[in-house]
């Protein structure tokens, strides 16, 4: 692959910047439903994408033709595309400096998921599928598993040459119960396919899907007769799996610098966290610290180097409640420094493309709500139980069901699969159809307690969409349960 990358660059004329990514990807997926294996699939993809910056304008072309003619034609196409845009360019793109890197990186996994037999995978999933069916009211029992292995080489005309191997996998289960017009879901360990990390088959084993299946089925059935979640202002504790998506939507996306600079205006939207607010905006309360950490072991957004050859980094996006940084790229850093000259001169390494055929964009790495250590009771970090106990009366919500946020990332509304009343410091009645709604800065400023490291989980989001053509990317979010005061709950009157 290194040889192929170098060969591609050999067709690039001198005097222009170019980089190439050569990628070999394997993926496998299994889905079971009601005891039947509905999907067992293996896919592979091999190709390369060339990015050329000529006269301050980008051109990009991708191909899977690995002949010399193919390399030459692809480079020529990327050049032609750049040249066709030059007459219409009003601002020239300049890249922030980056170190020349020659390196290798490999995800540390225990058991390569691709080395586990299909029989073993099916056995585990079908057992978990069966154990969810605890009642005739369970109308659907489902399981799913996915694994991904990517080998990629990055090479640039600046002399960088990097090879990486990234492996991730994950799985989950979901039971659906129905009675009359009511239909309720419960999933484990998370909704939208479960939990995903840059780890091996050991992650799937540790989840103990069969051991949790009965509870999942029972909770789905119990939701049918649970009370409707009340409406009003409540103190709200969000479980870590729901907070992961809250962080993703209301902290991760708005701190993508390409959005903030308007480059996603036509599709995914922009951001209320504009450059004039950098270092000033009271994004959250003083206990809110949000990091972007591509070095976090096991995180789904963990890698060695981004798709511009910049090394993985850990940066604070929000520090002690103040918005202090963005997820950046070489191009956007340079642009930001025109209005914010004091900003750091280098990219913090957030550029990734979903495949060889797509251009890299700024994507979330692992965007985390940092855990707290000594703010809980008696100088100890909060546990979920101690936080519930401290809350007195409120609502505890778990596991995302619906999510939506406006195109500047302000007005959001989330629904979860399940909630429980908190009464007199204890978890009480189960509620169904819980929803909450708010505005991003007000919401994060109402955060007054975050649980400690023992409750902290790095959740994986394998399906984040952005860009045109649409790119689906994988990111991670470390979160522990947290409390928010006086949140608008139960905004839906009719179900």
């Amino acid at each position, binding site marked *: 692959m290194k040889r192929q990358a170098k060969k591609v660059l050999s067709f690039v004329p001198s005097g222009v910047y170019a980089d190439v990514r050569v990628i070999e990807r394997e993926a496998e997926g299994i889905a079971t439903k009601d005891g039947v294996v509905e999907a067992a699939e293996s896919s592979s993809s091999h190709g390369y994408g060339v990015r050329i910056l000529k006269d301050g304008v980008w051109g990009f072309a991708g191909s*899977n033709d690995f002949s010399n003619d193919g390399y030459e034609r692809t480079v020529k196409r990327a050049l032609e595309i750049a040249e066709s845009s030059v007459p219409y360019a009003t601002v020239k793109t300049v890249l922030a400096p980056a170190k020349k890197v020659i390196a290798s990186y490999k995800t540390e996994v225990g058991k390569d998921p691709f080395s586990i037999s299909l029989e073993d995978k099916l056995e585990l999933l079908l057992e978990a599928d069966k154990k969810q069916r605890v009642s005739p009211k369970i109308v659907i029992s489902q399981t799913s598993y996915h694994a991904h292995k990517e080998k990629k080489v990055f090479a640039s005309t600046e002399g960088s040459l990097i090879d990486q191997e990234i492996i991730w996998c994950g799985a989950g289960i979901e039971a659906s119960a129905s009675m009359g017009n009511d239909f309720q879901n419960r999933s484990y360990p998370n909704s939208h396919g479960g939990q995903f990390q840059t780890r091996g088959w050991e992650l799937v084993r540790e989840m103990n899907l069969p051991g949790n299946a009965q509870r999942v089925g029972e909770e789905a059935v119990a939701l049918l007769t649970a009370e409707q979640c009340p409406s009003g202002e409540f103190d709200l504790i969000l479980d870590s799996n729901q907070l992961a998506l809250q962080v993703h939507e209301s902290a991760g996306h708005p701190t993508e610098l390409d959005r903030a600079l*308007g480059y996603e205006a036509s599709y995914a939207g922009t951001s209320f966290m504009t450059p004039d607010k950098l270092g000033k905006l009271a994004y959250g309360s003083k206990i809110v610290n949000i990091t972007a950490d591509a070095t976090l072991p096991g995180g789904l957004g963990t890698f060695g180097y981004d798709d511009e050859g910049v090394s993985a980094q850990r940066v604070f996006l929000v520090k002690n409640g103040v918005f202090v940084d963005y997820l950046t790229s070489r191009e956007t850093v340079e642009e930001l420094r025109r209005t914010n000259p004091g900003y750091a001169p280098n990219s913090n390494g957030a550029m990734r493309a979903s495949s060889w055929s797509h251009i890299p964009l700024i994507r979330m790495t692992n965007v985390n709500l940092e855990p707290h250590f000594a703010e809980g009771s008696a100088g100890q970090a909060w546990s979920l139980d101690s936080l519930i106990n401290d809350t007195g009366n409120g609502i505890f919500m778990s596991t995302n069901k619906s999510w939506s946020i406006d195109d500047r990332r302000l007005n959001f509304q989330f629904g979860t699969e399940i909630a429980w009343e908190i009464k007199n410091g204890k978890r009480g009645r189960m509620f169904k159809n819980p929803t909450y709604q708010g505005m991003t800065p007000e919401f994060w400023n109402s955060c007054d307690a975050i649980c400690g490291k023992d409750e902290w989980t790095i959740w994986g989001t394998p399906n984040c969409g952005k860009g045109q053509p649409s790119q689906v990317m994988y990111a991670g979010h470390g979160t522990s349960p947290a409390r928010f005061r006086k949140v608008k709950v139960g905004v839906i009157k009719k179900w």
Partner: protein
Amino acid sequence: MMDEQKLKKIAQKTLALTNADEAEVVLFVANRGLTRFANSQIHQNVSLEDLGLSVRVAFGKRIGVASGNSFQGVVLQNVVNRAEAIARLQKEDPHFRGLPEARKLPKIKSVVIQAAPQERAQNVSAVIKKAKEKKIIASGAYDSSVTEVAVANSKGVWAYHAAGASDLSTILIGENSTGFGSQLVKNPADMRADDVADKALAKVISGQNPKDIEPGEYDVVLESQAVNEMMSFFAWLGPNSRLYYEQASPFSGKLGEKVLGENITIIDSPLDESGFPMPFDFEGVPKQKTEIIKQGKLVNLTYDSYHAGRFNAKNTGHALPAPNTSGPIPLHLAFEPGTKSLEEMIKGVKRGLLVTRLWYVRFLNPRSLSITGMTRDGTFLIENGEIVHGVRNLRFNQSIPEALNNVVEIGRDLESVGSFETELGTNRMPALHIKNWNFTSGTQF
């Protein structure tokens, strides 16, 4: 472009490589060019040649699927080997009744033309120029592609279709308002960038200095783009036979019953040449016009071969690429149009809102087909049949069947609209005047 004969040879070669009882190969070739612009300049210009093949094999009722992205012999063999290996280790699927038999396919005219990079840049430049004249920032994309799809199976199915699509869309950004315009055409020569810009400019200018409006129930006129964003969710859960029989659809158990207003007739119209026709589904089964809702009654569900066999129904040609865990979904929805233009529909509203687009629409409750989302890029207050001023965007929580029971007027003009939920197809949507649309909160812009 590869052409039909080359793809047929590749399909035959692939099918000859397997000893499975039944086998199917789906081939896909795409040339895609996309020019994106933001802050009134082109910032991304890409070209992509891609191809893929997916092989589904069955040993009895044990099925395996594998895919790859090259048509070289060694890759074909590798993909077949992987599909066979999976199938041999698979459990039996008792509901699998075999792959479809060959049937005669409808003939449709294809337009297979892609806009060149210079042509895309010229159109984009025209939008930017118009916006700059009004001191407005332009963003958007011009996406132009040519796609070939072919399906073959061991029972003699051979189906091939090539088509082009060119889609220019823009969001223009003023000081405190935005406006959206778009056009989707088969032939890039029909693209009218000035019209796209004018439509968006009218929105951004008339939407200046938007005012807050109290959330609540309003009459709305949803433009065709907004209707399409809503109907993408209807397509997923409404007529899908899989979800119908899983009790997950709002219409479960209601086939033959009135489920929507009597003024609503919805068809799946895959052969309509005024849209983007497709003669067959992803199993090579011929597509046909299917009435789904007739004067408010649910008259047909959508099926692929698997669900038609499982539920003893006729296959309607709605298969998606295997393995499909979503169920058979219509990809070419169209309303029976009404008689009024958008302007005439606005005149019929005493007090309500004109909505250009919906944004970030997601299910709230699949069983009631309730969705939530925001308005975007042009929301206006209508009073006594006139647009009064722009309003800040609102969040809605709304049941789709309830909305389609509250339709006052259906627009006469059907527009071809694609969205990210329906990348595999294109709907033909009118504007709708709907009463009692439920807005629950607002935002700051």
